[in-house]
């Protein structure tokens, strides 16, 4: 009995043949081996014997199946190539989309216990994530019990001088708690100490791995070296490991915050972000409840400054915008659609092939091959095809993933590109095996179930199988309609955004940034000299039409919003009276081609001693003085009265996609008070050229700036058009991927229709012959074949259109106001599906028409 059970290790076919024989042999040997001392070695030997030989028998079968497979490949390489290609595309698309989604949405962020890390923000009725003031940070930190550690950071950019070219660096100012609470140790060196974070402490700095490599060649001697950051000497005390990014990908250096006492005076001076590590067992909700209580307390203490200000903690992934999340889910959905289409296509192909091979299989069954044996052979075949297809798919995924890098949000502290890791490989392998089984089992069972010689010789097409294959094709068409229509909707949305008028002309304008912010330029007067010198030289360059400086270019900096008061009346709702404030040199409107409607431009005569002036945009006038002449009217912002001298056109400061941009106020560049907020100092230079590519004058401009100030880095040199194109760049990247998927789906569905119809035609040759012999015209036959394709296409298109509408509703946040039932997108998608149906049914229909009745009838 035990021996018989052991024999189950053999393949069924072998067992059926030799089981009883082997049992006889075994019982003889047991009889010969007398006594328990003989029996034990016999059992050990037998177990070893069965396991070893069963494995060899399995191997023999595999070898046999492989040789069958090799023969199949030689006989019909086209079939094998199609299967491998389809499997590869499906698996490749899915794996690539999954690896990017996993990287951005699923994988824990690269810090120890990342789920306990949160960022803390101030909230107001209209802003859910506003920065904190250092005073609020100090008070909230002191009172909260939810956190194991609590720190704060703020973005900064500094000029690095020494050890090579001057360079503009993106970095972070952090309190001493931040890096230890994140939990990633420096690769060499150490974190900041509490002393180094005190007011007045000597400068220290921690470098990112890439900066360390670039500036110090990765040498350990960098530790203890001093670098000049915005003119202050700072000692390098540590280097972070290459995988470290916080709070965003671009951060290159970390400096201690060293808050001075004056930083804690103004509670409306909000510019830092809190970051905390929750105590084990404390949930985000509990921490939020506590923060709200504490914030309510501080609001009672400072009712004026902190009106309606509360606090909120978010997990780190909240930095990803809901749009990015929606887009990634859409991509994943699209890739699953492609995989679904690929699988149904394969199932269809294999089903057709298995039916075509019925005769061969029936012969083999008649010659004694068991059903299990045949199923096994077919499964080996399909798994092998799926494996080769899977390998191809992994290759496609590896090549395609870098194309997706633009889809990884830069605000997220992860590296730009997902690396291939075991999760992705596991996903690929799973997709491979599932595909293999999905398109292996069904046809294998179908083909071998009750196949005998009688049935094998007949070439009729069973109605039931026909319906199954039809259903598969309908599913393919529906899925491809969904992808086509969704891509269409997103393309329409992008065109709409691209067509939005930014309020200025982008062509032939070069922009760059010269951060004139170090200690040498702490006062306004030396800066004015710098601007005058640089602008005069640039304007004198041949081919330059005009040039001007501004605090920051539209769409690059969306903030800088201040409350406006008129006639000293505090507005009832301050959030309704805001404007974006910029300082500009003369000629800014000319350079960006913003129309000047009324009055005059900022002038060189507007110096600090003369009355403070302002140029405002049209919507500003509409809001504050509707129907009145705004010239010489006064308003107050940043604590000072300004008189309006000009009115210009509105521009989209917040970007093309934003529904609303605040009215704009432009102030004169010489009327910046000393010690004014660094962010408003004019640092961006815009140059309009007469013709051609504006980038050509970049070297000459660099020379002019180097002559005026050799230690000043020149950064962000790019045409203005690139900034505006950047508005839709991530959309474009997403669209390329999505349209790629739609294209693949389109192709696969066409192959599916073609495959189904060719199969039908070749199996209905006799019927067609009879029909033709009985007088059917070519037109009748054409209608017969094309009719089948069209009825399938119509069902698929109806289903697909319904699903596309549903997915359009899901994607509404990405549609920039476009309705998800957009007629153009739907008609384009449906039209393409019809084209696909026609293309897919063309060849089989022609073959059907060419059937020669005489040959067809004789063939049977």
């Amino acid at each position: 009995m035990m021996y018989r059970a052991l024999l189950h290790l053999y393949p069924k076919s072998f067992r059926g043949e030799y089981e009883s024989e082997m049992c006889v042999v075994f019982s003889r040997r047991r009889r010969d081996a007398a006594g328990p001392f003989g029996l034990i070695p016999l059992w050990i030997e037998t177990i070893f014997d069965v396991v070893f030989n069963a494995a060899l028998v399995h191997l023999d079968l595999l070898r046999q199946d492989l040789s069958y497979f090799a023969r199949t490949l030689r006989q019909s390489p086209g079939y094998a190539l199609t299967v491998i290609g389809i499997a590869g595309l499906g698996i490749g698309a899915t794996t690539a989309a999954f690896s990017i989604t996993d990287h951005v949405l699923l994988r824990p962020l690269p810090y120890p216990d990342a789920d306990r890390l949160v960022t803390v923000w101030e909230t107001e009725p209209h802003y859910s994530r506003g920065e904190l003031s250092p005073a609020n940070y100090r008070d909230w930190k002191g009172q909260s019990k939810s956190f194991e550690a609590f720190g704060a950071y703020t973005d900064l950019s500094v000029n690095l001088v020494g050890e090579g070219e001057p360079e503009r660096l993106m970095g972070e100012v952090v309190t001493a708690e931040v890096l230890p609470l994140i939990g990633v140790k420096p690769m060499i060196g150490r974190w900041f100490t509490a002393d180094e974070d005190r007011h007045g402490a000597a400068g220290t700095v921690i470098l990112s791995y890439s900066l360390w490599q670039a500036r110090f060649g990765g040498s350990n001697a960098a530790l203890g070296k001093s670098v000049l950051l915005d003119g202050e000497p700072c000692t390098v005390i540590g280097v972070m490991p290459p995988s470290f990014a916080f709070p965003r990908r671009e951060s290159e250096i970390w400096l201690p915050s060293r808050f001075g006492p004056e930083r804690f005076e103004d509670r409306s001076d909000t510019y830092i972000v809190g970051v905390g590590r929750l105590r084990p067992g404390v949930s985000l909700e509990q921490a939020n409840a506590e923060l709200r209580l504490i914030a309510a307390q501080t609001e009672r203490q400072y009712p004026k400054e902190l009106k309606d200000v509360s606090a909120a903690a978010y997990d780190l992934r909240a930095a990803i915008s809901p749009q990015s999340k929606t887009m990634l889910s859409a991509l994943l959905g699209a890739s699953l659609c492609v995989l679904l289409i690929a699988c149904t296509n394969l199932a269809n192909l294999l089903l057709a092939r298995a039916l075509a091979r019925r005769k061969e299989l029936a012969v083999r069954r008649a010659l004694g091959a068991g059903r299990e044996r045949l199923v096994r052979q077919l499964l080996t075949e399909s798994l092998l095809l799926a494996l080769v297809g899977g390998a191809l798919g992994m290759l496609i995924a590896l090549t395609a993933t870098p194309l997706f890098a633009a889809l990884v949000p830069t605000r997220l502290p992860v590296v730009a590109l997902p690396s291939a890791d075991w999760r992705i490989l596991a996903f690929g392998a799973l997709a491979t095996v599932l595909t293999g089984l999905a398109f292996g089992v069904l046809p294998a069972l179908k083909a071998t179930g009750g196949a005998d010689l009688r049935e094998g010789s007949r070439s009729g097409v069973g109605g039931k199988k026909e319906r199954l294959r039809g259903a598969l094709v309908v599913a393919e068409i529906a899925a491809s309609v969904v992808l086509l229509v969704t891509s269409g909707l997103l393309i329409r949305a992008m065109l709409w955004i691209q067509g939005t008028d930014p309020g200025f002309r982008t062509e032939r304008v070069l922009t760059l940034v010269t951060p004139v912010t170090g200690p040498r330029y702490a006062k306004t007067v030396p800066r004015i000299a710098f601007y005058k010198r640089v602008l005069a030289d640039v304007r004198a360059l041949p081919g330059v039409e005009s040039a001007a400086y501004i605090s920051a270019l539209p769409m690059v900096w969306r903030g800088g919003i201040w409350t406006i008061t008129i006639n000293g009346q505090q507005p009832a709702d301050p959030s309704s009276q805001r404007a974006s404030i910029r300082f500009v040199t003369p000629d800014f409107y000319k350079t960006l081609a913003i129309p000047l409607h009324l009055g005059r431009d900022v002038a060189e005569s507007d110096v600090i001693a003369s009355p403070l002036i302002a140029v405002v945009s049209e919507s500003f006038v509409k809001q504050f003085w509707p129907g009145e002449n705004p010239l010489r009217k006064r308003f107050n912002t940043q604590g000072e009265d300004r008189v309006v001298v000009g009115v210009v056109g509105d521009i989209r400061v917040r970007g093309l996609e934003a529904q609303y941009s605040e009215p704009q106020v432009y102030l004169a560049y010489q009327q910046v008070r000393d010690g004014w907020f660094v962010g408003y100092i004019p640092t961006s230079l815009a140059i309009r050229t007469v013709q051609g590519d504006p980038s050509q004058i970049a070297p000459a401009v660099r020379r002019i700036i180097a002559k005026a100030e050799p230690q000043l880095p020149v950064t962000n040199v790019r045409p203005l058009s690139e900034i505006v194109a950047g508005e839709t760049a991530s959309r474009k990247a997403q669209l390329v991927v999505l349209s790629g998927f739609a294209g693949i789906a389109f192709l696969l569905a066409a192959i599916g229709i073609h495959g189904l119809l060719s199969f039908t035609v070749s199996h209905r040759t006799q019927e067609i012959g009879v029909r033709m012999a009985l007088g059917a015209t070519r037109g009748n036959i054409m209608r017969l074949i094309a009719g089948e394709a069209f009825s399938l296409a119509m069902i698929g298109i109806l289903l697909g259109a319904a699903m596309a509408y549903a997915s359009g509703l899901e994607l509404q946040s990405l549609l920039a106001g476009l309705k998800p039932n957009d007629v153009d997108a739907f008609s384009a998608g449906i039209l393409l599906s019809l084209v696909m149906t026609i293309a897919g049914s063309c060849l089989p229909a022609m073959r059907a028409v060419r059937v020669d009745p005489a040959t067809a009838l004789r063939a049977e």
Partner: protein
Amino acid sequence: MEPDALLPLPPAAFHILMAVADEDRHGYGIIQDVSASTNGELKLSAGTLYRSIQRMLEQGLLLETRDRPAPEDDDERRRYYRITPFGREVAKAEANRLTHLVRLARKSGFATGRA
């Protein structure tokens, strides 16, 4: 197929061919015969035997016979195996191969006897 294509034969297969050279035998009979002719040194296990038989049937070295010996010796469950002419050729080719090998071994002094 050329007999040489199957050379060298696995030792088990060669022994099985020798066991059925003169008379048809059933599985256990083959094990006993091999054991006897090698003075008990080679005892084929059931697994090795039937795996070899399965493959030799496929290769056409053996065939299963329906002519049973005298009824009193017969057991309903047993299958008898007979060597095919092709099996004989293969066995001869294998024997030749081995003889040639031994001759070479003698030449180089690895084995006793005339080279």
